């Protein structure tokens, strides 16, 4: 069940902001095994949604609507899920690009938590519910989360949301319960085309790079990797993607950032403002005392 407790791997989550390297973000307790994750090759996604269903099956997530009944179609191509949420941890996006009839292309992409190497959600979580596992993945401990929802606003990809059954924030666990016993995650296991590939990040990055070259040679000039660069935003994504159009087209941010980028300046301005107001207050009050002595009467008339 999604609300399964996970072993504590860290007393106080080390803010990934200060740990560029996965290893550095290793849990203080247990040692870090090889970083694991997903390479999602959207060019071989057939939009079958097997991943979405497999995820719900394995994690026993509720169907939307009342048990799947009385739902309306979205009218947005074949996408009736529309977003990742507390009860949908995998979501297949459908992007129709047809300027005129029959002329165009239909992009499909299976979206999921990116398991950021520097995870904004983990960074802000005030209860320590979000942890980094020995696989360098990011997991929410549902028994710790109290539903404050700070992480929801912190995730640059809109991955997290409240699960209305548990009242806690939930998202992909990268099948922690499966991979920790040597099983492949349910979604990638179900993927019939290997659009979702699970494995050690280093290996996946190599495979992905080769695939990009191959696609370019075959004429798909737009092919590139999103989130594969450890020097890139958030120290790289442990679930990265091969895309053939601008990130925004897939509903992905061009430059995902750490929330703390605003922490220093935001606090600075406020502090300055605070001191200023305190001083102004003090000064004006003192000034008034001075006045009193001299001009008490002149005020009487008013």
């Amino acid at each position, binding site marked *: 069940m999604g609300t399964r407790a996970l072993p504590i791997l860290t007393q106080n989550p080390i803010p990934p902001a200060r740990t560029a390297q996965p290893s550095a973000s290793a849990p203080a307790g247990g040692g870090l095994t090889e970083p694991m994750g997903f390479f999602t090759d959207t060019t*071989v996604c*057939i*939009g*079958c*949604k*097997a991943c*979405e*269903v497999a995820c*719900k*099956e394995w994690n026993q997530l*509720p*169907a*939307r*609507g009342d*048990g*799947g*009944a009385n*739902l*309306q*179609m979205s*009218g947005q*191509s*074949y996408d*009736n*899920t529309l977003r990742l949420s507390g009860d949908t941890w995998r979501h297949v996006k459908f992007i*129709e690009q*047809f*300027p*005129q*009839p*029959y*002329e*165009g*292309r*239909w*992009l*499909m992409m299976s979206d999921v938590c990116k398991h950021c190497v520097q995870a904004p959600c983990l960074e802000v979580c005030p209860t320590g519910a979000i942890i980094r596992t020995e696989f360098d993945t990011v997991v929410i401990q549902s028994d710790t989360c109290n539903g404050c929802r700070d992480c929801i606003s912190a995730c640059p990809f809109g991955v997290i949301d409240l699960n209305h059954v548990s009242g806690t924030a939930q998202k992909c666990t990268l099948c922690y319960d499966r991979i920790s016993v040597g099983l492949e995650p349910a979604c990638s296991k179900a993927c*019939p*085309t*290997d659009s979702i590939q699970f494995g050690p990040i280093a290996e996946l990055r190599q495979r992905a790079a080769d695939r990009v070259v*191959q696609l370019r040679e*075959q004429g798909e000039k737009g092919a590139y990797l999103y989130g594969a660069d450890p020097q890139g935003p958030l120290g790289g994504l442990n679930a990265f993607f091969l895309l053939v159009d601008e990130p925004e087209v897939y509903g992905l941010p061009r430059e995902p950032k750490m929330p703390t980028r605003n922490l220093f300046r935001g606090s600075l301005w406020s502090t300055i403002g605070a001191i200023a107001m305190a001083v102004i207050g003090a000064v004006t009050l003192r000034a008034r005392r001075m006045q009193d002595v001299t001009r008490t009467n002149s005020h009487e008339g008013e």
Partner: protein
Amino acid sequence: MYPRDMMQSDCVVIMGSNMAECHPVAFRWPLRARVNGAKLIHVDPRFTRTSANCDIHAPIRAGSDIAFLGGLINHVLSSDRWNADPFFQSFVSTYTNASTIVSPEFKDTEDLDGVFSGLEQHAEDPDWPFGGLTGEYDPASWQYAGTAVQTTGQQTAYTARAGQTKQNQGPQTATPKHGAAPGIPMDAGTTAAPAKWDLLVRSLLKPTPRTDPSMQDPHCVLQILKRHFARYTPELVEQVTGCPRTKFLTVAETVLKNSGADRTTSFAYAVAWTQHTDGVQMISCCALLQLLLGNMGRPGGGIMALRGHAAIQGSTDVPTLYHSIHGYMSAPSALKKHDTLHDYIATETVPTGYWANLPKFLVSYLKSMYGDAARPENDWGYDWHPKIFGDFSHMAMMAAMAEGKVKGMLCIGQNPATSLNGSAQRAAMRKLDWLVVKDNWLTETAMQWKNAPEIDDGSVKVEDIKTEIFFFPATQIGEYEGSYTNTQRMLQWHFKAADPPGDCRTDTWFYYQLGQRLKAKYANSTLKRDEGWKHLVWDYEPDFTSGEAPNATGEADALKLLREINGFQTADPTKQLSGFGELKDDGSTTCASWIYCGVFPAWSNNLSARREPDPPETPGAELHWGWAWPANRRVMYNRASADPAGKPWSERKRWIWWDRAVQNPPDPTTGKAQPPGRWVGYDVPDFALTKAPTARAKPGGIGLDAHTGAEPFIMKPDGKGWLFVPSGLVDGPLPVHYEPAESPVHNQLYKQQSSPMFKWWARGKSYNLIAPVGDPRYPCVITTYRLTEHYLSGAMSRWLPYLAELQPELFIEIGRDLAQERGIANLDFVTITSPRHKIRARALVTNRIGAMTIGGKKVHHVGMPWHWGWQGLSVGDVANDLTSWVGDPNVSIHEGKAFVCNVEKA
């Protein structure tokens, strides 16, 4: 071919199927081929999830496939490459009937403006007036010059004169629909037909057809083809299909470029080629093209028939088909000369080619039916076997039901209330006295008496329905063990994973119990017609030698069933047969389905349960994974993967070849030494193992002796691939583009609008009206199809939360310009009207479908999935209320894929 083999294709044309959505797991193979540089092409009225993963999408109007394929054929025949490349020349001249001379009486559609010689009126049989044929052919004039292609002519003459439907003709068995090709025992070079029926079979021999190796004779097949397809120019293709000429030409060039000695192209189709009034001709048109391109019997070549329902392949092998018995033998029929066993064999046996062994198959089959009671003196119980006397296909039965001619129905694993021409079928079923539904859910069929649309709208009163409906809860596949035949003719054994809930019973339990009870009822009958029941062997009691303990008492033993299908020595059932080479026609072997013979050679050795993949990166056919009939062969007619001399056509496309070095054991039957040399390769050779490429045909020989060592198509009387089909198809020896029964335009090729003999049941009945050509009330062409998210009538998906939420509502896909014309916005409710019915659905406005210019006329193409009904979590109107009872004259499939309608804002 089989799905995994598509990985070896250099080009894959998916036409008549939405492979990625309907066969997602199989689609991984063409996709893998594409990743490695192969070209994928999708020819479809819609841009689907398959198109999204192809290099080229060519939009065509539903029902215009033969025009498109004809265009490809014309392009190939008139291309320099095809005429110059020695590969094509040698493949076509040696492996096909291109050089065979056809009877001068034959008149082509060219001569008769759209029909072939031999067209006649069709008279319905008064006893069973539900054949539905609108006309019929006497194929006498289609034969090879000077020689009727064995058995068929004689048979046709018989039924033609009798004026009865040819639905049940031998030809279907002579050239099985599903490409059935029995194998040859690994240990026997040739198989002479055995003594008992030898003389009879020999007496059937006809002179061998004349050929013109230069293929110049005006009456030779190639010349006829050239004339026949000359009309199919790119311009005409564009006019008829609506596919832009340039798109068509890119497809043509890509296919031609990727065919030859070291490249192969494959085609994949499913029901968008079958569900037409000329569906079988669409498929044979593709076969014709693939033969011309030398893409048959070779790795990565061929035609992938993507079967539908899980194990639907099995249901035609061990048939639920009314017109055939096990292994694609014709069902004994009152309409053919089948009066005695002798007559049956004389009518059905093709003396040349492997079908010459039919007597062995049939006698072994009769032994499986009647056991010890089947003896030579009673013709192995042949007379006890039921005979058909008309068209008992699905819609024929429904039409009869509507006339009150059918009293009861067992509906097991089907949901006819929505899955075919719904409202008409529900009306028909309301005429039944009793209806048994055995299903996992309370389907629309089970609940039609309570809340069908016609009951909700008050037009039918519940109290007026006299039908008594019984519901039996069924187990699911994971709740029992058994075998399962998939789209590559592969049997895979599945084991029981969970106990069935409550009173759910397997279907075998139901049949086994029903059989026992019926036998008891007939036990004391003195009527002759009940003899069969009295002698029927019916023992599947588990003896716990099988793996799984039975679910419920009275459960049949799945392994015993498999053993009966596989066959055994009559004298000792524990001696199971290891291949159909062992079959005898003297009653010493018992075998229900000769094509499955060999899957279960010993009780301890169930080959369908094997799960051993080939080592990675080794060329091979995964021969140790499950078991594929015939003889575990994966690519049929694979002798064609080597050149006439037995060498691989090319290194890249090596599959089966002749190794002259291999020493052979002495002939087991005669005991005399055999010369060295053997067919070897990655697959089980589909040829007499030790028959040299240079072997000559034995004069007056029967069976395979009648073929040379360079004639790969061993099921054919002449061992050749048929470009021109002298027998086997009731609607013509060559494919012709005809318009669907309902079309907005006139046929632009010939005066003949639609197939001259398509089936139209319940003609003139109010519930089965057909719109006249170009009827302004129904301007749109509509097609129906599936979604990945749902399964068929939806009983297996609309009840499941995780699937229902993915496609929660019925919709119709319409193009942006139609939406503008009709003021329809995305998600608006619209009404869809056909001459039969009117339904409601949401509009999904998209440019993935749109208007086409057909014969200079703008035609809007729309389409909708048909998964919905009123039961389950996600409910919606029944798309099949719109469709009609018209179908293909060969196989009686309804034309669900192309008809006309109107779409208006609701």
